[in-house]
């Protein structure tokens, strides 16, 4: 029941948007719906902590503690993004950058997008999961292209083509899994269920599964933004409206990563530790290396944030490659922390872009002087992203590192640290240009509206609170991690 | 070694040392000047001329450059006072000195450095180009002489596991054979160079020069006159004296009193005076034979001293 409820919440917001048309208060419906998603996610997660069996709805939807955790992640980041959308839509409509009709379309699509992501994590079966992830591509393409200019067009083309191909490969992988499942005695939809697959993983044909896992990792890896199929990411993130970038980077990548996490468990059960690990490590290290190098010379704020997402996804993949309880705990916490930090940064970048009509850091330089509050938020966001305490990314990165070393991956950790150092240098240089280098004659000390600051402050506070206080995520994450620990 | 065991003789020896040096130091400088003059074929002033000069200077009015501060005035006092403390701490007459807690070779080096530093600061305080020049050159030489000096001390201290002066001297007395060992000879060489550099003698600096571009010590004290100059001159001569006394007791310790008796004290004082005078004459004679080095060649000389002292340490360890 609850899973249908969770799914229905954002859909209600879609209906509101379509029903009432453009009103300045209309986007708040989305915020409310997403907040409700968070509450529902918490309810399930805390219930699961106390060992109540997972529930399903008609066999196709199923909510266990990992799904609940992902629902929380989706809910929290979507809430921030919707909150940011309120301001975004108002200013776009006021400045006639978009028509009210487009605004309604945007509001509806964004909640539809949330709904598809929720569907992906609630899917009990890998087919539904695939459909849901493909649906996220379709809903977001229009969001990416919302601005309807040349850049938006180019970005959405690349986005949809690359992601569709990737997702198609994932479908091929899914087909192969189904083949293996059918030969292992499964039939029809039942054979595609997570629970069934995990339970019968030993019986699956290894030759088929090897190929399937490779295709799945490459396919869903596209959506995660892992090298070599990452190229859509910087373009899409830099061209879409800031709240959409926040959502895509903050949760869409993680939702796709969630699929990888689940498949990895089955792959390890069927094929043993080494093959899936090699795949994950290879893609992780490639992502880390390329993203960190590209970060170093990056002058566009949103592209930089996009590459930083690739880098963080690389970190997650490395953690997933290890697969031990510690590493997975770290991975899950990192998903949440990264979503929050990236959400905050993308929302701020939108505000920078609104004011300066650019996301080129040199053009937008001197933020800390010009707009102290916004600059402060960006500085803290960057600190969070770079893994400084008290933000939770510090703890999650450390935990992942501990897990990886414990799972005999110290060499990979060493390599990843080199990349991290380069990425650090890149982001700090970028931060320096953005925050400090002001030009003479610019107005300083401008006020930033509360509506803009509120989601940023909430996001940063949450990110810090999660990193400092044990309750409630200690228990929730542990319970969730147990499900995908090999 | 605690306070209760200190005898009158020990306290007396400190007093005698200080008095002897204060009275004798200007004479020693006079002696060196006379020796140089004679060797150069001149008559030269009498030995007691230095004291006469000092008396004359002390009677004059004190003057101070307009821009200078408290440091200019205090530096001569610090110079003399630190050197007197060094004299008091150095076991010249007896190895059983009363001020054992300060009678440490390293401590003495730092005390002497305090004097140099105060003079260098005073020179900068005058606000003239000469002051700065002298100060800069002095500190450059000090900076380079330090390593040679401390490593040479290490060579002497290593065999007795202590840098305490009485212990080193007593060690040499108990083991006369040490005196002829290579490490001693090498350390002696290093010491001599460093002492010449520290006390501003040839070939590092010419105490008799008045050519601005070459001077070091003279540039430092250019602004001093009257009683202050007297104190600086006295301080410089005290430094030379104590350094020579140190040299003589470290390398030729014979005659120093090891027992607390009157006879040995008298003998020790006489022998000390003779040794120091002899060393002074040797230095003066040597100065006639060498020319002053270019300032930028001085580091090479000091580097040579450093090499000597390192070799001294190495041979000390190899032999031990």
């Amino acid at each position, binding site marked *: 029941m609850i899973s249908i409820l969770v799914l229905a919440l954002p859909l209600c917001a879609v209906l509101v948007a379509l029903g009432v048309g453009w009103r300045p208060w209309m986007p708040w419906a989305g915020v409310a719906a997403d907040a409700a998603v968070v509450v529902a996610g918490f309810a399930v997660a805390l219930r699961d902590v106390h060992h109540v069996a997972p529930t399903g709805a008609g066999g196709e939807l199923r909510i266990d503690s990992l799904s609940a955790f992902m629902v929380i992640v989706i809910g929290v980041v979507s809430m921030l993004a919707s909150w940011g959308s309120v301001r975004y839509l108002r200013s776009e409509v006021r400045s006639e950058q978009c028509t009210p009709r487009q605004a309604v379309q945007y509001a509806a699509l964004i909640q539809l997008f949330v709904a598809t992501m929720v569907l992906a994590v609630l899917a009990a079966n890998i087919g539904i999961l695939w459909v849901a992830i493909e649906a996220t591509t379709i809903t977001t393409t229009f969001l990416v292209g919302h601005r309807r200019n040349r850049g938006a067009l180019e970005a959405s083309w690349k986005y949809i083509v690359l992601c569709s*191909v990737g997702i198609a490969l994932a479908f091929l992988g899914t087909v192969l899994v189904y083949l293996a499942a059918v030969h292992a005695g499964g039939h029809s939809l039942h054979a595609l269920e997570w629970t069934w697959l995990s339970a019968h993983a030993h019986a699956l044909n290894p030759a088929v599964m090897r190929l399937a896992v490779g295709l799945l990792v490459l396919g869903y890896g596209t959506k995660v933004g892992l090298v*070599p199929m990452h190229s859509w990411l910087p373009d899409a993130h830099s061209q879409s409206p800031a709240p959409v970038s926040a959502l895509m980077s903050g949760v869409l990548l993680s939702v796709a990563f969630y699929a990888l996490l689940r498949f990895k468990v089955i792959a390890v059960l069927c094929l043993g530790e080494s093959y899936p690990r090699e795949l994950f490590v290879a893609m992780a290290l490639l992502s880390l290396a390329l993203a960190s190098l590209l970060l170093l010379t990056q002058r566009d704020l949103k592209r930089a944030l996009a590459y930083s997402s690739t880098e963080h996804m690389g970190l997650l993949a490395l953690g997933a490659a290890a697969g031990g309880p510690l590493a997975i705990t770290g991975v899950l916490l990192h998903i949440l922390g990264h979503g929050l930090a990236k959400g905050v940064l993308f929302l701020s970048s939108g505000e920078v872009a609104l004011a300066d009509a650019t996301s080129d850091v040199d053009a937008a330089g001197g933020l800390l002087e010009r707009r102290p509050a916004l600059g402060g938020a960006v500085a803290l966001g960057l600190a969070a992203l770079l893994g400084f305490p*008290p933000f939770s990314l510090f*703890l999650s990165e450390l935990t992942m590192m501990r897990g990886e070393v414990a799972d005999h991956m110290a060499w990979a950790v060493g390599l990843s640290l080199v990349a991290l150092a380069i990425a650090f240098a890149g982001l700090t240089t970028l931060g320096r240009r953005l925050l400090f280098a002001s030009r003479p004659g610019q107005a300083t000390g401008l006020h930033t509206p509360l509506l803009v600051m509120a989601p940023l402050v909430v996001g940063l506070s949450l990110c810090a609170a999660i990193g400092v206080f044990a309750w409630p995520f200690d228990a929730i994450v542990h319970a969730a991690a147990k499900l995908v620990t090999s | 070694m605690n306070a209760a065991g200190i005898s009158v003789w020990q306290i007396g020896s400190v007093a005698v040392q200080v008095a002897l040096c204060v009275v004798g130091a200007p004479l020693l400088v006079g002696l060196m000047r006379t020796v140089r003059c004679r060797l150069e074929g001149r008559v030269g002033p009498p030995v007691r001329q230095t004291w006469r000069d000092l008396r004359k200077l002390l009677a004059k009015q004190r003057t101070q450059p307009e821009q200078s501060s408290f440091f200019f005035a205090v530096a001569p006092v610090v110079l003399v006072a630190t050197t007197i403390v060094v004299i008091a701490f150095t076991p010249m007459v007896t190895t059983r000195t009363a001020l054992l807690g300060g009678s440490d070779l390293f401590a003495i080096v730092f005390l002497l450095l305090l004097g140099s530093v105060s003079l260098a600061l005073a020179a900068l305080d005058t606000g003239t180009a000469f002051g700065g020049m002298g100060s800069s050159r002095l500190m450059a030489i000090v900076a380079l002489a330090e*390593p040679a000096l401390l*490593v040479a001390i290490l060579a002497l201290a290593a065999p007795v596991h202590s840098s305490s002066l009485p212990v080193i001297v007593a060690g040499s007395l108990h083991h006369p054979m040490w005196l002829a060992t290579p490490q001693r000879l090498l350390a002696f060489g290093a010491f001599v160079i460093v002492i010449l550099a520290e006390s501003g003698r040839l070939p590092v600096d010419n105490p008799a020069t008045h050519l601005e571009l070459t001077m070091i010590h003279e540039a430092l004290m250019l602004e001093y006159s009257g009683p202050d100059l007297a*104190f600086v001159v006295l301080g410089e001569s005290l430094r030379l004296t104590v350094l020579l006394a140190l040299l003589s007791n470290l390398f030729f310790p014979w005659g120093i009193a090891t027992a607390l008796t009157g006879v040995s004290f008298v003998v020790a004082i006489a022998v000390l005076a003779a040794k120091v005078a002899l060393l002074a004459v040797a230095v003066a004679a040597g100065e006639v034979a060498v020319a002053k080095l270019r300032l930028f060649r001085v580091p090479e000389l000091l580097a040579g001293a450093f090499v000597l002292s390192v070799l001294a340490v190495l041979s000390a360890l190899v032999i031990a």
Partner: protein
Amino acid sequence: MTALLVAVALSGFAGAVGGLLARARARVVVVAFFTIAASLAALTVALDVLRTGKVATLTTTQVLPFTGVQLRLDALGALFVAVTAVVATAVSIYSVGYSRHHPMSRSSACAFATFVTSMLLVPAAWSVTTFLFAWELMAVASLALVLTDYRRSADVRSAAIWYAVLTQIGATTIAFGLVVLAVKTGGQGFTTMALHSASMAPWLRGAVFLLALTGFASKAGVVPLHVWLPKAHAEAPSAVSALMSAAMVNLGIYGILRVGDTLLGGGPSWWWITVIMLGVGSAIYGSIHAATSTDLKRLLAYSTADNIGLVMIAIGTAGLLSSTGHQSFAALALFAGMFHLVNHAVFKGTLFLAAGSVQYATGTRDLDQLGGLFTRMPIASTIFAFGTVAITALPPLCGFVSEWLLLQSLLHGLSSSVSVSVVLMPLCVAALALTGGLTAAAFVKAFGVGFLGIARSPAAEGASEPPRLMNVGAGVLASLCVVLGVAPIAMVGLLNSVVRTIQTSGGSIVSSHGEALAISDAKGVFDPTLIALALVTSLLCVAGVRRVLSRRHAIRRAPAWGCGRELQTARMTYTATSFAEPLQRVFDDVLQPSQDLDVSHRGESRYFVESVRFGTRGGDAFERLLYQPVFSTVRRLANKARLLQNGSVHRYLAYGLGALVVILVFAR
């Protein structure tokens, strides 16, 4: 004691929150109040631990998910906590005065309290996560503080980047090392790690040590990882530089001791030879740069590298001697190192705060622009003078005592008949001596050129005494220079308990003998109190004599002699640049300055010169020869990588097709 530890954390973070929320005028007072409260609480705990030897612990699982917080303050940590607490107290007082004309911003206020608190917690952290949490908090807070004056110049920003990158690389290697250690020993609590580390493979232990050493050395500013230090210390506000130089860099040393000795339980000689060599390099390189710098705070920063190098020599010697079985000599070296560390904190804190007063009064820290300050701001100058005497290791202040102890430990190391020490100890003594001499030159320059003589600029001309609280803050530390120098026996008990946590069998090799220091196994005692007493007596006597002899006339003020020229101007005096010239010439090969001589002639003539400009720029050779090539290589690689992202969707798809083919063919 646990309650007090809680109080430290709560009060400190309350200060951070208070700084964030308080109104502009009250901000600094709120922050100072809370940091001083935290510091005093920490000092109480630390002194109690040092005196009684009983550890203070605090464990909770409510804070920090997955692991919880584990604090345990033993004597080693307590020493560092105590040092930090004292310095932080003085700096807080100073900051209140400083903020009279430079109000503290919200973020600085928050960062200040966070910085102090995290520094107080780092030495108490007793698990990997807790430690790294505090460590990184310290890094980020100090980074924010370095950026306080970011509006002033681009140098501040670039300094911050250097600091951020190097400190982060350091933190990363520390984290990696500690994590490997934790995993291999099966627990992330320090107790478990210490218990099981002996069973690890030697190469792994070595790797862990090297990783940790790299990280901690970069925090401590050890050459060649020091590049951030002269930049950050120079550009940060002086109060922050004081905190960083007097408290934060110490924690690098703490880390080396904690990991090397407690967690890994000591190691083979080569570990410690590495430490010694780093120390020697750092000491010499730092002192050469200090002797030739003309920027007052850069000079102080390089001298930090120098002094930390000396401490590294000491702890390296301790480790080396301990690994070869000379526990008591090792204990002496450790004692000396820790004493020097405490002294360095005190006098470098003094110097940075006094330098801050100068900058406050004149707006510059370029020695060539200063001069004549002693008559204009006597109290601040006197404070700097105390620092100068202390750092130059002149009696009777504190530097002298620790320098003596360092020399003693090397002397004993020399006689320990370990073959490697035959080569190393003379080298160390030479380094110690050379740095001693160069430090003297550096600080004669700093004080003589900066504070004495003629004012060289209008700014120096118009200088006046800073607010009283600034002098009070700096004065607290200056008076400690005297106390530690005159009565070092006060430290003997405390330092011995630190030494005992590491050299368990070494015992207390340094003991107090009356008011003198005595070293067991060695003849003779050393009595700084006696030396101080003798100096003061002698000074008074000589001054008295001069007074008696020259009382007939008043002192006459006259113009200085200027080769016959009447007018003395500031342009004629020696500047810091010219003062350092002889040494610069000697150390040309190390400094590698770039010089340019620019002569323009008058008219047609070759003989009449219109003007001559001579400039030398002395960058850091390591920056140019080590860092820049690495950076440019990475940058070149990054530019190559950009070609991969050329915007063509076909190319992007080709990457995918390639990957698909690879997976199909190789992953079968």
